[in-house]
């Protein structure tokens, strides 16, 4: 496992370098792994990297790019749009010469067209947003402040919003509200029932389940090498 980076386009035509975790041995099969979004990214990070270790073990190179404004990125998340994340994923796919893609949960909202692969438990942007808004309403209520989902969404689309510790731009919220999982014939969904175990993104704390990593890696490996 290595620290790597990829050139990521910025507004105005310049480029920044974003971090990526890589298992790169110049092999034929090269998997771009697109992470889950927001709090789910934390809860699924361990599982995601363990899947990559297993894919590496079966002879598949893998790459996990940081999205601009997350993890080690120097970008300010509050100025980032969903479209910036899509451009970043496309740039990473190009830079690492990906032959396949594995998107985890909301990562499926960011895929470039034409790359074959898998969507693990894909979710609509509106569904992610609904849970983030609800968490904010519940936290505010505990602090004695009453907010409503409709009013928050309307305000957030215009002015941005702090949701579950993430400062999101109005454009991010607007684009997330509309975002649908990539609907491409070359993508296959892997629902949680097929993987088995409990969905780790629902848990209050990050956790890991090696059996789920085994199952996901096996499904992807069989598909890649079929």
């Amino acid at each position, binding site marked *: 496992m290595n620290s790597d980076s990829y050139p990521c386009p910025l507004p105005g035509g310049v480029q920044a370098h974003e971090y990526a975790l890589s298992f790169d041995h110049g092999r034929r099969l090269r998997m771009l792994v697109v992470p889950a979004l927001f*709090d789910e990214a934390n809860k699924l990070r361990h599982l995601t990297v363990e899947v990559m270790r297993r894919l590496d073990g079966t002879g598949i190179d893998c790459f996990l790019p940081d999205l601009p404004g997350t993890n080690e990125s120097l970008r300010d998340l509050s100025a980032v749009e969903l479209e910036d994340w899509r451009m970043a994923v496309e740039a990473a796919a190009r830079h690492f010469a990906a032959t396949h893609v594995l998107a985890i949960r909301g990562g499926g909202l960011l895929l470039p067209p034409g790359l074959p692969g898998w969507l693990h438990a894909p979710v609509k942007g509106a*569904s992610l947003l609904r*849970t983030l808004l*609800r968490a904010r309403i519940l936290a505010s209520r*505990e602090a004695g402040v009453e907010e*409503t989902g409709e009013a928050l969404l309307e305000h957030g689309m215009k002015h941005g919003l702090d949701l579950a510790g993430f400062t999101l731009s109005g454009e991010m919220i607007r684009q997330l509200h509309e975002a649908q999982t990539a609907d491409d014939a070359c993508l296959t969904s892997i629902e949680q029932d097929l993987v088995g175990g*409990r969905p780790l993104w*629902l848990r*209050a704390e990050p956790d890991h389940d090696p059996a789920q990593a085994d199952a996901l890696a096996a499904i992807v490996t069989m598909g890649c090498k079929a």
Partner: protein
Amino acid sequence: MRSDTDRKLRRILSDVLGLTDDQVEDLTPDTGLFGHLPELDSMAVAGLFTEMEDRLGIAIDDDEIDADLLETYGALLAFAEAKREAA
């Protein structure tokens, strides 16, 4: 025999709380839920209600979510069953 809502709600709680199958079976109407599990934050509670909406086919207004609803398993099940009957 358990209702469909009961079975599905047990599964949702087991997913959110990370319960074993035995713990899920042991849930009774009096079993305390979130008041007894202070580590659950607003994000986990929000996720629970979004899952209930998706898997039970119901819509839940944010102002319906209050502490009493989450006091016991029986209270949450009664709420879910009433929602499904009204749907």
